[in-house]
Structures are given as structure tokens and as C-alpha cells.
């Protein structure tokens, strides 16, 4: 960004940042439309589509019955035929129902047709545990990182929620946009004028020198809290928010670990075949071996039970403890 005008900002709720991105794109391109449950007059479960129904009507902001397989397929099909739908899946857990049309058709469409067709569809979904039980809490973005032809992004701030969604709506293939239940209460500054956050670019949100914490989505906030705890212990932690899980920004991640020499990855999902282990492996391919540890949820379903949920999810002290131990081992 350059020029004093473009650095002007406006504070928005996370949901307002999303609604703004969608509204701008819908105004500019009549082929952008929204499919989901409770997205119309209700404005979305988190009010993330507030105002869109009133402005664009029921043809472009469409309520659907609960039928994720059909909904994703319809979105993918409409995209293949030239439209740019956003398919909103309220709980990421239910993305699984839409995997066949998204992954078997959407992600493979350009390839399987030899370039004749492509499906520019944004599947927007909300991940994360917040007291709603084992089937309404999952973070399964890692499952989708390995699908050739499918991109995955995850904002952690209102600015990135806005910028990444704008960019996602300009992509020429399918892209999964993962936000998080615990991010909706967050307010933050968003550029005043229209802007985009490029897909495939990570963000160093806190600079540091002793250790790198690589993370995404709500866990970015936990990582920043962990960095504060580490600071009081005399450790300077650099926090890098992936923003883009597929493709990964190996260049930015690599530069950070090259500088600090030590890495802790943090995710709310499972560490087995998770985001972290992929990041660690890719960086070791680039930089050679270095001390690394991955932190994620306990290997158990995440109950709605407050005590059990809290036990399962990573928190700042757990992250800080892992970081300290890793640095101690190094010495």
C-alpha cells in the first residue's frame, strides 16, 4: 500500500469485514451470489451477510435447506457454468458432506476436462470449538491442504477476513475460506479503500528473534498471547500467521525460521497429518534440520463440556511451555 489515502483505516467487527467483502464483489460482478442456510433475511448465523439480502434480493442471496452435498454441488456446477458463488457452510464439520462435489468434481474439473472448464467457487466455512460439541467443533483444514486443485485460506483478523475473501472471489478455481467461531467477537482495523490480501502470502504479525511460532486462524491470537508470556521470560518470539494454507508461503516462513532457528507450529486441529507437520517438513526440506515441535488439540473429539473442551484445546501457557522446553533442549 502506498499514499496517505490508502493507509486510512476503519474499525469493523469480523463479520462486518466479511459482509463488506461480499457486498463489494456482488456490486462489481452480478455473477457473484451466496448460497447457504440462514443467509437471506437472517443475514447469516454470525450476521456475516447482514444487509446483502436487502440489497441484492433472494435470487442472489439464497437460503437453502440443510443439504450440504447438493448445496456444494450446485455451487460448483454454477461456477463451472460461469458464475462465482459463495457457498456458506455454517459449521466446518459439515464440509465433509460436500467433499464429493468439491473434491471429486470441483478441484479436478480443470484437469479432468483438459482445461475446458473450471469452477471458481468459494466455500466459506466456520471452524472451531466453542461449547457446541463433538460434531460442531472441528478444524479440518489440514484435510484439504493436500488436494491438488484446491486452495485453502484462513484469516485471523478483520483486515484479512476482508482482504482474503475479496481475493478468493477473484480466483479461477475452487477455494476454501475458513473463519472461526472465536474470531467473530474480534474487531479490528480494515483498510478504508478497496483492497485485497494476496493468496499465498503469510503475515509476520509479531517480530522476534529467538523462536518462530507459525499458526493460523484463531490460534494466531493464542500465539500472540503466548509470545507475551515468553517475553516476560526474556524470550523474543516471532509470530507468523499463515493466512494461506494451500498454497503455503514457504519463502516468508523460511525467512523467519532461518532467522530464529527454532519453530513451534500451532493449530487448533489435530497434529497428526496436520498443518504443522507439513510446514515443518517443507521448511526442513528448504533449510535442513532444525528444532521443531507441533502443538494442536489433544487427540480426542472436542466435547461441549466446558472442562473437557478446555483440556483439549491449546492455550497460551501450553504453547509457551512447549517453546521454552524446545529452546532449553537446544542449549
Amino acid at each position, binding site marked *: 500500500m502506498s499514499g496517505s489515502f490508502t493507509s486510512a483505516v476503519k474499525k469493523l467487527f469480523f463479520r462486518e469485514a466479511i459482509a463488506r467483502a461480499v457486498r463489494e464483489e456482488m456490486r462489481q460482478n452480478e455473477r457473484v451470489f451466496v448460497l447457504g442456510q440462514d443467509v437471506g433475511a437472517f443475514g447469516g448465523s454470525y450476521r456475516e451477510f447482514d444487509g446483502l439480502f436487502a440489497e441484492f434480493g433472494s435470487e442472489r442471496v439464497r437460503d437453502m435447506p440443510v*443439504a450440504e452435498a447438493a448445496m456444494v454441488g450446485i455451487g460448483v*456446477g*454454477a461456477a463451472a457454468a*460461469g458464475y462465482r458463488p459463495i457457498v456458506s457452510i455454517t459449521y466446518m464439520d459439515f464440509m465433509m458432506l460436500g467433499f464429493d462435489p468439491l473434491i*471429486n*468434481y470441483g478441484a479436478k474439473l*480443470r484437469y479432468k476436462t*483438459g482445461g*475446458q*472448464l473450471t469452477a471458481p467457487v468459494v466455500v466459506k466455512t466456520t471452524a472451531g470449538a466453542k461449547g457446541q460439541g463433538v460434531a460442531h467443533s472441528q478444524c479440518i483444514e489440514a484435510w484439504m491442504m493436500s488436494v491438488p486443485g484446491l486452495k485453502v485460506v484462513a484469516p485471523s483478523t478483520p483486515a484479512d477476513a476482508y482482504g482474503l475473501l475479496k481475493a478468493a472471489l477473484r480466483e479461477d478455481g475452487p477455494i476454501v475460506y475458513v473463519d472461526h467461531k472465536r474470531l467473530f467477537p474480534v474487531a479490528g482495523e480494515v483498510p478504508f479503500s478497496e483492497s485485497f490480501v494476496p493468496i499465498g502470502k503469510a503475515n509476520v504479525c509479531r517480530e522476534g528473534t529467538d523462536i518462530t511460532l507459525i499458526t493460523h486462524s484463531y490460534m494466531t491470537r493464542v500465539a500472540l498471547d503466548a509470545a507475551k508470556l515468553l517475553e516476560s521470560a526474556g524470550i523474543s518470539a516471532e509470530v507468523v500467521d499463515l493466512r494461506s494454507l494451500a498454497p503455503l508461503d514457504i519463502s516468508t516462513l523460511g525467512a523467519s525460521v532461518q532467522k530464529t532457528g527454532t519453530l513451534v507450529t500451532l493449530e487448533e486441529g489435530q497434529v497428526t497429518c496436520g498443518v504443522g507437520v507439513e510446514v515443518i517438513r517443507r521448511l526442513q526440506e528448504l533449510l535442513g534440520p532444525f528444532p521443531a515441535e507441533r502443538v494442536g488439540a489433544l487427540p480426542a473429539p472436542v466435547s461441549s463440556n466446558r472442562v473437557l473442551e478446555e483440556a483439549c484445546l491449546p492455550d497460551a501457557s501450553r504453547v509457551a511451555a512447549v517453546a521454552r522446553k524446545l529452546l532449553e533442549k537446544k542449549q
Partner: protein
Amino acid sequence: MTAEEAKDALRSMMLIRAFEEALAKKPDHGFQLLSTGEEAVAVGICSALSLNDQLLTGGRSIGPALARGCDPRRVMAELLGKSSGTNRGKGGRGHLADPTVGFFGSHAVVAGNISIAAGVALSMQMSRTKSIVTILFGDGAFGAGALHEVLNIAATWKLPLLFVCNNNQLSVSTPRATALAPKNLSDIGLAFGIPSKTVDGMDVNTVAGAAGEAVDWVRSGRGPAFLECMSLRFASHSTTARETRSKAELAEVRTHCPILKQAAALRTAGIVDDMIEAQLNSDVADIIGEAIAFADASEYPDPAEALTDVW
């Protein structure tokens, strides 16, 4: 159908039959699902479609692709894995596509193309075109949730979508009667308020007539329609699947050939005689010969193409 259309239909079915026979003779024919015996369904349906309509199918795609007007040379090349194929050799039978001639494509996941077809239909509705989408699937797809979800949405939104169930009464080894509850598969339409019909899929004129009615309904904007075409498969489900019927049963099934039936009907009507039939056979043989020659002369893709068109 007019006399000319009826003759075209015969020719089209003969083309499919000859094409698939030529394909099956190739040692490297690959994993194929053939339409032998079911040609009238593909040809009858396609006879009712207009230029800008789109057809989507499941894995039994060769007959429908040819009936819709895909270039036989490029289809043969695709099936044999050559880069001159419709999909640059990368899709094969399961994913044949040529949207420029109205064949939006096949998809190898059973019932996997149904929701996609609804999305394409939605795009046509939103664009206010007069085009429609036809989704062709077998009785094997009828049990899938995707079909029921999409019937509901298509009816609710009055999508310009024609559902065609090619019921050849066998899903690999499973007879339809042991797997599917409705008396007629088209009864499903009643549940969703969709006009539905079951017709004889072995008679191309019957299929064409019913398809014409259904297409008119759908194109009028009154919503989807459901057409069940009863057919018979003359061979096993695929080139690798074992046949489950006895020799006697198969022999009986093969007496219902839609091509012989149409030829006989046209002879009776004076539209076809020995000379015309010989001409049709010759035309078809020429086309198939060209298709084989084209495919044989074409190159396989460069291994580097494994990584192109992924993103």
C-alpha cells in the same frame, strides 16, 4: 419425429454401436462402460435438445456423447488416451466433455453429476436464457442421497432441469427390484411435485416423443421434469465386470435391439430400404474408420502434462 429425424436417429444409434464395437476390438481399449442395447435412450433424449442446452451424464458416457454431437474422432482419441482427445487425454470415458456442442460432461462418480447439473441449470435460470440442462443417470444412481436432495431443490426453485433415469434394471450385479423401493422410479417425481413419466427406452421414437414433451415443459420455466426410460443392457456393466445373467437370459435380452427395431419400423414406413440401410452402414463405417485412424495417428500426452491444468 419426422422421417428425416427418424432416419437420423437410426444412423445415430448405428454410429454408437459401431463405435463401441470398434473400441472394444482395440487391445488397449481400457476400462469402458458401453451403451450396447441402450442406444435409443441417448439418441432419443438428444433428439429433443437444442444447440445451447447442456447434457451431463454419469459414467456410461460414450453413447450420450456421440448422440449429443461430440466429434467421434476426438472421443476415440480421448478414450484411447491421446492428447488430441476432447479432454487432452486426461479425463477418459469417465469425464468426457465438450461443452461447445452441449455435452457439459460426464462424471464418473455415481450420482456425482446430479448436483452439478442443478448448478448449471441454476446458472441458466439466473442468466434468463431459454436453455435447459439434462442430467442422465442410471438406476444405480437412484438410491443416492444426491438425487433426492437435488430433486427437492430443483422443484423448489423450478430449475430448468430434466432428470432422465436410464433404468437398465441392473446396477453392476444388483437387480433394481432388490435395491429400489418405488414401483416405477418415476414415482419419485410425485413426492416433489415434478411431472414424471416412465417409457419404453428400447424404442427411440417413444423416447424422442416423451423427451420432447418433457423438454418443452422444462423450457417453459414451469420447473423440472423426470423421465424414466426402461432399457436393457446387452453386455455386462463394464469391460471388466462379470456378467451375472445366464446365456439364455442374455439371448432373450438381445432380441430387443433398438437398432433392429427402428430399422424394421422405418422399413415398414417406407423410409428405409436395402439401399438406404447399406448407405447408412457405409457412412457409419467411414466415420468410425476415420475416428480410429485419427486416434491411432495421435500422440499420447507428454508426461509433463501430468502437472498441467491442475490450478
